[in-house]
């Protein structure tokens, strides 16, 4: 997959900010080294001056060779502070971290399933898949149309909303067709449903993280075979069937509001 690559610690100015759905924003930061090496599903761990003690992990949403983007909502102290910042303000970016989706040539059709902020790793995934000649169907769900980030990529795009206000009325999982490869990101509860239907799906899970670098063992992901993996090192992308879903906390704020 994508581990073992070089990790960078960069002092990155915010270069742009845009709203992509109600209360949902994309921040761009200058981080050329990370932009050049990041793979879909990897994350950056972000800290800032007079911020909270711990860094905050964010999937890389997009990159343009010079900047990387992250997508977020204000759900707590850290995200609120981040969204109060302006272009020019500086963030400390550590990354790219973790194993990504690890896409390789071979499969013919990929389905990307995302719920809410689970959209985060999908633009990179759609891009990588397309480059590998894989046909991409991206199914993206949210509670309602105004919460749906409609920046999209891929050969086919399917929208799903819980309230039916846009596209399919129901969850992204219910709206998704079958495919050779299924990639998913969203609330852990949604990922558990993905695991039921596609045990071989590659899912990006969410955990609390202390370090993001593999040393604290705080990001424990319970495994079906027993014991725990580190989401920041062995994850955050897992084979859906490998996770002991009932033991994985599903109430994280990102997940809940996703």
């Amino acid at each position, binding site marked *: 997959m994508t581990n073992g690559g*070089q*990790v*960078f*610690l960069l002092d990155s100015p915010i270069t742009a900010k845009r709203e992509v759905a109600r209360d949902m924003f994309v921040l761009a930061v200058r981080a050329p080294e990370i932009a050049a090496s990041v793979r879909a599903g990897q994350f950056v761990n972000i*800290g800032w001056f007079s911020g*909270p*003690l*711990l*860094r905050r992990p964010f999937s890389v949403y997009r990159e343009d060779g010079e900047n990387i983007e992250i997508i977020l909502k204000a759900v707590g102290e850290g995200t609120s502070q981040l969204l109060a910042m302006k272009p020019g303000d500086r963030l*400390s970016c*550590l990354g790219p*971290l973790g194993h990504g989706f690890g896409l390789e040539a071979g499969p013919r059709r990929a389905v990307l399933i995302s719920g809410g902020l689970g959209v985060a790793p999908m633009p990179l995934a759609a891009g990588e898949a397309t480059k590998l000649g894989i046909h991409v169907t991206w199914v993206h769900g949210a509670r309602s149309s105004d919460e749906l980030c409609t920046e999209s990529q891929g050969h086919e795009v399917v929208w799903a909303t819980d309230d039916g206000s846009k596209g399919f009325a129901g969850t992204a999982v219910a709206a998704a067709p079958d495919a050779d490869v299924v990639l998913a990101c969203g609330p852990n509860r949604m990922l558990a449903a993905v695991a039921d239907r596609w045990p071989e799906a590659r899912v990006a899970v969410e*955990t*609390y*993280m*202390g*370090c*993001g*670098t*593999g*040393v*604290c*063992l*705080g*990001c*424990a*992901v*319970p495994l079906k075979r*027993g*014991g*725990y993996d580190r989401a920041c*090192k062995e994850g955050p992308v897992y084979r859906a069937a490998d996770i002991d879903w009932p*033991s*994985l*906390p599903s*109430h994280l704020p990102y997940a809940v509001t996703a």
Partner: protein
Amino acid sequence: MSDMAVAVGGVKLRGPVLAASGTFGYGTELPVLERRALAGMVSKGIFLRPREGTAPPRISETPSGMLNAIGLQGPGVDVLIRDYAPKWAEWDFPVFVNINGESALEYGEVAARLDGVPGVAGFEINISCPNVEQGGLYFGNDPRAAAAVTEAVRKRTSLPVWVKLTPMVSDIGVIARAVEAAGADALCAINTFVGMSIDLNAYQPRLSFRTGGLSGPAIRPLAVHLAHQAALAVRIPVIGIGGIMRAEDALEFLVAGCAAVQVGTATFVNPRAIAEVHDGIAAFLEAKRFTSLTDLPRYLPRD
């Protein structure tokens, strides 16, 4: 350049800043690290046998701190010897193994297995473990139990033995003297404080283990005080630990009477924290024109 070397509890270190147990893994994980400044590391706490650790959530952020309940997840002594010690043997700084047990005997057994293994420079005894033989109370709260563990380890190894004290005691000096008398070469002060944080949606603790250990800058003033009290109580060196983020923080411990320091949580925030603390201490000594760290004035009124 001022001379940064220190002699601590049976070893000569190239500087005063070590990596704290549980915050540096086995020394192999961290990216963007600068090893040149690392005076030594203490590996993640190990038991005789493998341990799964606690269920998630394991950590929770608090004001200027974090709670953790990792549950001493680890592969056990045999895997440590097989997978990590050979790497440590190649490094240019010493690795201390943080050892744990549910009985004094078990601590001794862990030390005996590791004694003489190339790559293992010495031991840090973690006495914040529950003493299973005596009903789950912590070894670290009871001077006799703490001394018993220290002796059990001391008897099984000729390597340096450091004892890491818990802060959850009414008089740290009593424990410090007990383990000094039992043969410790140095004291490490301190481990985390027990804390709890409540999830207001679930009406229960945020951590699955209910309580966790508080680390980070929040505890620094408490840690400086306890390290100072320990230093006043004993003649062996004290290694200060707790909330060190910057060189100034480390210097507080050194002035308060510590011979060296360990950096923990700061490494999570900044993988280069240890190098920055080391360089900042060196810069301070330069600015104050001390030719060596041993010239730093210490505040140790023994009255």
